[in-house]
């Protein structure tokens, strides 16, 4: 599936509308950046409660396709600007990372 498909299915607010054509091939949920950078696969949808600028850096480094910021948290404007430059899609979800992960799993991301 693509970023577009995830946006449509998850029903979360689109904070940054990035490259919708990117493939999403798996998912990862974690707030420790070192874990994410070590273990998330390129093309992942990443569920996290982190909202600062390094989320974009980590996503770019790993090749994350879409970031879902959970628990109703929102990013600072500099993060939004940076993500837009990187064409990285960011969603805001009111759900917990657990629920978001469950939804992504149900969509077929394994």
């Amino acid at each position: 599936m693509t970023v577009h498909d995830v946006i449509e299915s998850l029903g979360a607010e689109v904070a940054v509308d990035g490259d919708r054509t990117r493939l999403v091939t798996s998912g990862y949920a974690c707030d420790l950046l070192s874990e994410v950078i070590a273990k998330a696969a390129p093309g992942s949808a990443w569920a996290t409660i982190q909202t600062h600028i390094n989320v974009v850096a980590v996503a770019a480094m790993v090749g994350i396709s879409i970031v879902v910021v959970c628990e109703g948290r929102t990013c600072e404007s500099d993060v939004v600007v940076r993500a837009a430059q990187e064409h990285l899609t960011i969603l805001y979800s009111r759900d917990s990372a657990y629920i978001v992960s469950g939804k992504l799993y149900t969509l077929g991301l394994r």
Partner: protein
Amino acid sequence: MSLEQNVEALRYLGLFTSLDASSVMSTGVHALHPEDRVAAARTLMREKSISGVPIVDANFRLVGIISVSKIIEALADGRLADSVDSVMTREVISLHAHDTFETILSCFQRFKFGRFPVVEEGGKLVGMITDTDVLSAIIRSFYSVYVHDQRRTVTIGSFSALSKEFENSADFAYDISSTGLENAGEGSARLKAFLQSKGFGESVVRRASVCAYEAEINVCIHAGGKGSLRAIARDGEIIVRVEDEGPGIENIDLAMKEGWSTATDAIRELGFGAGMGLPNIRRFSDHLVIISGKDKATKVEMIFLADKE
């Protein structure tokens, strides 16, 4: 390897730059005065198992040295009851407390003595350096060097732990300069783009940039955000060197353990400081050398082989 080459290697590596004569020397030194008897020197050498005794004046200024060979001569001539003053060597080759490790090694090479007195301003004796002291100092230094591969042994044999190529040039260079964590990761992002432009494969690029990111984050979290990130990329090999000016890693073995970190709670809340930085680097690099220590600069060098995949 000649001594000159060894000294040159030491200078290049900067491995023992913090070692001066005052940190190498033994300070529990026994000395005699010129008016003491030769017999007293003989007794002292036998009891303390030492092969030379420095001679000092009333103000502890070095005025001579008496060695085993001088004692043997005095014994043969029946002069054990004479004063030390009459048999001691007056032209003493001594080191200064601030002399560098290179100077110390050069001294041992040039003069072939087993020991050198160490003096401070005014010629006051403050210690002695034997070859055993030098060896002990080297071994102590290696407690602050971590080499994560078979080069651990090579390092100790020939001091060749770090790549020489960085001396002259690097294919990629980025000055890390970050006041907070805002720009953290910028250098490794650029490195990643650079490596991709060089045509390296996706996997080795990912490994190299992930490790560079971790090292860069460490500079931002622990070293005030000031440092350098350089890389050499050629012939299927990527060498990445990240350096900062300290405060250094006090215990590298601990820092290599997963989950161990000295980061503050504020840093941890941002998702950093999980104690995974160096363990991740070890996991993803094919060779890793870290040189650091308390209040010292840190050098992290990582090598990634494209054909390992």
